[in-house]
């Protein structure tokens, strides 16, 4: 058995997490918001999957659903399965889930200021993670915390242990967050807009750090972002979400080389540097605005902004269809 696993690793790493038909709805006074509607994907060990989309597309809710952190009420995972290492996370008790969080899956948030506790020294915050999840004493935890700070390349880690979050810059705080996320050597890290609040030179440092850590530790990363540049640099596979649905799914090379869904094409045309590099060429903006989950159109959810929309798009919602190996699109243009 073990022999066959290591053999397979050479060709294809093991699937670490398998999300199938995930549905997370929010029941509010205004009605049911289908924040995540029928989302499926796999992430293999050591790989990075990016979920791209604009505000309200359901990318963060997907992440929170995996972590079991959907506030209930009003939110609820109403369907689907999330198999992690063979177990369905949605069937676990809160106690079991707490064991998974931190030990097996950990999360990095966008805002490193609000996700660290301002009144505790960062050393204590990291050691807390360790003593909470692993059977080690305080001294060992402290040594390990210093090692972690070293791993995320914080200079003078011993003295930094006594710092409070406000004494650190945004980039340093995000490093501390990454150190905490790595503390229990998780199999997977969910990074929700990890560099959005950072300056570009710091963003470059953090992305490089995440890439190296994932290579050395084999940690899988679920990266949630709106930045197509960050995705291109870091991810093996990409999912594009719109209004709670996956509209396109492909490996990064196919998605950037041959985007098929009109929304994906629109996103690519919207940012300077892909098709238009200079103001002499107009940006191909997507008309209209990002929809509210309470007022989604009938049929394809993108039909009111799509320049190719025809009758069928207004009536029926298309399925996610395979158009090439590993490349799926939800659009009637492809049958």
């Amino acid at each position, binding site marked *: 058995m073990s022999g066959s696993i290591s053999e397979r690793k050479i060709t294809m790493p093991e699937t670490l997490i398998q999300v199938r038909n995930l549905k997370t709805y929010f029941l509010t006074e205004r009605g049911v918001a289908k924040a995540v509607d029928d989302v499926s994907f796999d992430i293999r060990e050591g790989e990075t999957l990016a979920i791209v989309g604009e505000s309200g597309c359901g990318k963060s809710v997907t992440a929170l659903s995996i972590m079991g952190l959907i506030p209930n009420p009003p939110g609820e995972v109403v369907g689907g399965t999330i198999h992690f290492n063979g177990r369905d996370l949605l069937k676990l008790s809160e106690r079991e889930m707490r064991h998974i969080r931190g030990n097996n899956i950990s999360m990095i948030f966008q805002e490193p200021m609000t996700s660290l506790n301002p009144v505790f020294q960062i050393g204590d915050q990291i050691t807390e993670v360790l003593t909470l999840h692993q059977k080690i004493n305080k001294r060992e935890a402290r040594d390990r915390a210093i090692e972690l700070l070293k791993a995320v390349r914080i200079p003078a880690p011993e003295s930094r242990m006594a710092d409070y979050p406000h004494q650190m810059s945004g980039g340093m705080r995000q490093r501390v967050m990454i150190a905490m996320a790595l503390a229990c050597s998780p199999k997977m890290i969910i990074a929700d807009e990890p560099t959005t609040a950072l300056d570009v030179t710091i963003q470059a440092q953090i992305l490089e750090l995440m890439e190296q850590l994932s290579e050395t530790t084999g940690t899988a990363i679920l990266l949630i972002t709106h930045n197509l540049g960050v995705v291109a640099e870091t991810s093996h596979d990409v999912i594009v979400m719109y209004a709670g649905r996956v509209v396109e799914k492909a490996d990064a090379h196919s998605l950037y080389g041959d985007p098929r869904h009109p929304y994906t094409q629109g996103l690519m045309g*919207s940012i300077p540097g892909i098709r238009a590099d200079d103001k002499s060429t107009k940006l191909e903006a997507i008309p209209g605005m*990002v929809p509210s989950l309470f007022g989604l159109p009938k049929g394809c959810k993108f039909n009111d902004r799509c320049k190719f929309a025809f009758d069928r798009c207004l009536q029926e919602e298309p399925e996610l269809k395979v158009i090439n190996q590993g490349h799926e699109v939800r659009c009637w243009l492809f049958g």
Partner: protein
Amino acid sequence: METQNNQKEKLIVTRNLKKDYTTTVGGFGQKAVVHALDRIDLEIYKGETLGLVGESGCGKSTLGRMIIRLENPTEGEVHYRDKDLLSLSRKELNPLRRNLQIIFQDPYSSLNARHTIGQIIGEGLKIHHIGTHAEQTKNVKDLMKVVGLREDAYEAYPHEFSGGQRQRIGIARALALNPELIVCDEPVSALDVSIQAQVINLLLELQKEFQLTYLFISHDLSVVKYISDRIAVMYLGRLVELAPKSELYINPTHPYTRALLSAVPIPNPEKKRDRHSISGDVPSPISPPKGCHFHPRCPEAKPICREAVPEFKEFRPDHWVRCFR
């Protein structure tokens, strides 16, 4: 600068512009001085888009506000055409204000929540007594059409609009007085990608139609690259490089500019960016390093960089750099 740019009309000229803020550090009221701007000499030509880039805290927004005299500098001069903005009295300044407008980053906090869209856009017309009430209303409605807002939005309040539409309201307000220069302070940073492109396209159309001059402040280098004619790079309160766009991207000369450009992720998985990543963080503007502000992070720093501040020099026509190399 003399030969090349004499033909170009200078709209704004700043000389030796400095701004210090006093702030308290720690919880016990100790005072410290933040050097937000340090001897900025900058010219903005009529009809151009000058991009101003730099990381948070580098002083780019402060400079933008100073240029339209929303704030007064500690030292130095700002000239708008032949007028020295800082020597003017409030009364003398007021008629000039209509020529110098600003669009803010946050379309949520920059619109008065208790005013209707009509009031927000028309406020400047009222203050400057332009036209009768009926003319003002018509003017506002025309502006709303120009920026792509529906006419029935006139009586609506800001909370009824999305971020992108609010930014259009902010743009209409800036346009109302038919300005010459608009300072665009991160106008698309808070918007979704698909909406960003709409607003950028709108800004470009308006520039053509009304011969506007933009000072476009942003930390997003791909947007700045797209929209600008010339680009100025700031680091910790100082200009470190200034050049026409293509020159800057082909031939970035200051080590900071090079690091900044190479840090931008390229939206193409086939291309790997050649990384000149720099280590360390931006130092605090309260205690900036001696000499060249960039020397602690500079891969090419020499002993002199620690001691003296390099001059801002034109090392090629129109290409200015502040570096000892």
